[in-house]
């Protein structure tokens, strides 16, 4: 069975097999859709507007919309325009690319007696270019006695390529966010700073352990080698795919910047995470690293370099530094808070002059894991829950169909609503006549026929209490250590896909974020990835990153005697 999909803006129509997602259709059609979450329905970047015959147009996620009838689709901005250099929501920076291309004219040898070939190059470029054997060889193989026009691709004084071609070479960079679960890649044109295309994938290390501790354990018991090999291979695959889509080659990529948590950092580089998973949880190296791509097996230009952002501590990694780089937190006098909620919730609090970071063991509950009807933010997930004036509870389901489960944002809404209507009390106790296995439950959709319905159980509420208690305790203790009151915090940056869908008032109602800060929350998307892009588009960014990492204090929550008391305090919904 096939249907017609008509792309209004692109003025294309194509016949498509039923059941394909719009995202798959877009990829196959070479439209380079943006899906950093890998089509999991999490990131919301593949949003399009579509309608069937005679229907109203509605906003949908391309990755969650299957073609089951003829569709008319309107796409958003083009990819390049969405991901501008400046990091979307983040700090505006001017473009001073890390790698530049320069057109130079070598004077005839006779006019420059006493100069070596390399000195002639230096003179022509006006820059004390550093000698490198491959580049000196390349220059020496060309007879330039009568002078020559050439292109040099360089990163400051380091020459990455010499080209005697007429055509100006492409100069690209790639940024990667190496997440524990998913990988996001961005291909950047270093001349314009524009993101040409993006790629995403599931981290292949998944088969060695679902979380960082599991993978570290595999590395310690067996070897880190297979973990290192598979992630590098996947990065090469993503890079090749992006280059192919942008109609170039890996040889056009001169710089690769990378962010990720400390464990992903170590495993990518082939460093044992041994010191990091035992108290006092310190990484093997914390400063930023600039390494030849060829040493890491990354297939790019022969002289390309890999830039790994620095780490703050064993459980606060380069991804957090990326977040600091791309948000305003570390650049302003006003106090702010950066929250990145994942399996470990990383927090940074402070301003330009002083900052402190910590990692909280929030667990995966807020991502829908460990919750009875929990699921990813995909079709069928309850993403929002509301209560009307007469106390009626209404759910909003991704894709508009029948509710199959509940995702992170829906979970937070659900608890906030149940608190409001008194089904859950401030201690987290659920009062409900409905029970499953002796446990109180609240049905969002009762079972009908063969389908099992969607509910929230007492245990689910307890899981959320533990997760939000951990994060809230982190916030409280950071503020206490910095000697500031929460009301002094002017802005809260909420990173990650979760932050984009979260209803701030409900996050505050359940105490995930302090209530005082309700009107100060900004969702900043993948701020870590944006930070990695900034490394490419702004040559000073890597030094800024190093400074931010070194000047951000780290707070080990587990070592604070008051941690348990504060954590238990924060369990309540009061």
């Amino acid at each position: 069975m096939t249907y017609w999909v008509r792309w209004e803006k692109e003025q294309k129509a194509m016949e498509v097999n039923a059941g394909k997602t719009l995202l798959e259709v877009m990829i196959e059609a070479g439209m380079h859709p943006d899906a950093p979450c890998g089509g999991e329905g999490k990131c919301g970047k593949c949003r399009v507007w579509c309608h069937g015959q005679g229907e109203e147009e509605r906003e949908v996620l391309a990755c969650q919309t299957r073609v089951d009838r003829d569709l008319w689709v309107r796409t958003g901005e083009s990819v390049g325009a969405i991901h501008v250099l400046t990091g979307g929501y983040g700090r505006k920076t001017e473009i001073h690319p890390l790698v530049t291309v320069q057109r130079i004219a070598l004077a005839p040898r006779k006019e420059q007696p006493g100069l070596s070939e390399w000195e002639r190059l230096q003179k022509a470029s006006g820059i004390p270019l550093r000698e490198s054997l491959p580049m000196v060889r390349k220059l020496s193989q060309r007879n330039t006695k009568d002078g020559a026009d050439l292109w040099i691709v360089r990163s400051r004084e380091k020459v990455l390529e010499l080209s005697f071609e007429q055509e100006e070479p492409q100069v690209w960079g790639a940024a990667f966010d190496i997440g524990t679960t998913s990988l996001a890649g961005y291909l950047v044109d270093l001349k314009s700073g524009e993101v040409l295309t993006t790629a995403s994938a599931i981290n292949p290390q998944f088969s060695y352990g679902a979380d960082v501790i599991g993978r570290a354990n595999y590395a310690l018991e067996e070897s880190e080698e297979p973990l290192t090999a598979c992630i590098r291979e996947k990065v090469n695959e993503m890079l090749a795919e992006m280059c192919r889509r942008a109609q170039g080659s890996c040889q056009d990529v001169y710089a690769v910047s990378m962010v990720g948590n400390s464990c992903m950092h170590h495993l990518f580089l082939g460093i044992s995470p041994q010191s990091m998973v035992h108290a006092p949880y310190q990484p093997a190296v914390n400063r930023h690293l600039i390494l030849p791509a060829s040493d890491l097996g990354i297939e790019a230009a022969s002289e390309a370099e890999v830039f790994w952002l620095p780490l703050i501590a064993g459980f606060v990694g380069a991804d957090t530094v990326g977040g600091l780089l791309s948000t305003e937190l570390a650049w302003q006098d006003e106090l702010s808070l950066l929250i990145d909620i994942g399996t470990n919730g990383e927090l940074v609090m402070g301003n330009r002059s002083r900052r402190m970071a910590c990692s909280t063991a929030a667990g995966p509950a807020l991502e829908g894991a460990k919750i009875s009807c929990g699921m990813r933010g995909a079709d069928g997930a309850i993403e929002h829950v509301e209560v009307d004036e007469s106390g009626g509870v209404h759910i909003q389901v991704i894709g508009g169909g029948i509710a199959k489960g509940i995702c992170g944002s829906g979970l937070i809404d659900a608890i906030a609503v149940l608190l409001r209507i008194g089904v859950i009390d401030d201690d987290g106790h659920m009062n409900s006549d409905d029970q499953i296995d002796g446990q109180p439950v609240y049905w969002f959709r009762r079972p009908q026929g063969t389908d099992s319905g969607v509910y929230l159980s007492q245990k689910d509420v307890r899981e959320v209490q533990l997760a939000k208690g951990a994060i809230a305790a982190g916030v409280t203790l950071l503020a206490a250590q910095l000697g500031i009151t929460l009301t002094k915090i002017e802005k809260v940056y909420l990173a990650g896909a979760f932050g984009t869908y979260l209803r701030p008032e409900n996050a505050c109602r359940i105490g995930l974020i302090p209530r005082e800060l309700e009107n100060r929350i900004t969702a900043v998307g993948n701020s870590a990835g944006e930070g990695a892009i900034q490394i490419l588009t702004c040559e000073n960014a890597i030094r800024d990153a190093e400074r931010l990492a070194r000047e951000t204090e780290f707070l080990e929550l587990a070592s604070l005697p008051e941690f348990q008391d504060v954590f238990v305090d924060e369990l309540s919904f009061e």
Partner: protein
Amino acid sequence: MSKLQEVADLTERGKAKLIGAAVQGALDEGTPAPEILNTMIDAMGVVGEKFKRNEIFVPEMLVAARAMKKGVEILKPHLAGDNTVSAGKLIIGTVAGDLHDIGKNLVAMMLESAGFEVIDLGVDVPIEKFVETVKENPDVKIVCLSALLTTTMPAMKDTVAALAAEDFRSNIKIMVGGAPITQEFADEIGADAYTADAASAAEKAKELAA
């Protein structure tokens, strides 16, 4: 509701803010301090039972334990000497390389409630510290080891091995626990007992110390 009943109720419900006044009230009514303590201990026992039956979960255990701690603080000055019979002395700690102690603290609390005299060595405890402490306290009956991280399980294994190499091994029992620990692992490393939760740990300890 009598003041004593109120103390029991507030312990079970984990009302740390209110329990102080209730304990004081019971004292003012003339209830002997040991009786109030026993009431709280029994209440914690109920909490532990409910936890085992999946009727309540970790957050409720934590708030109940904290309420009990607050209640005991008020009670302490009134407990003249130690007139409760000790079930025995035991050592507890989180193994080297691991800084996690919430679970361990819960177990310690339940053990205290069960009448044990608990020597809590804290977190990231070096192997030698466990060994020394047993030597300094020859009347110790049980050593309890906790680990939360998969990566610190080897440290638990090494600690058990070090304890086993000492002459006192036959005088002590070793109990292990923590999220990644299983009965199988406990058997493999030569521990005497494993329990899945704090309430079972207290029961098991009583059994081992008897």
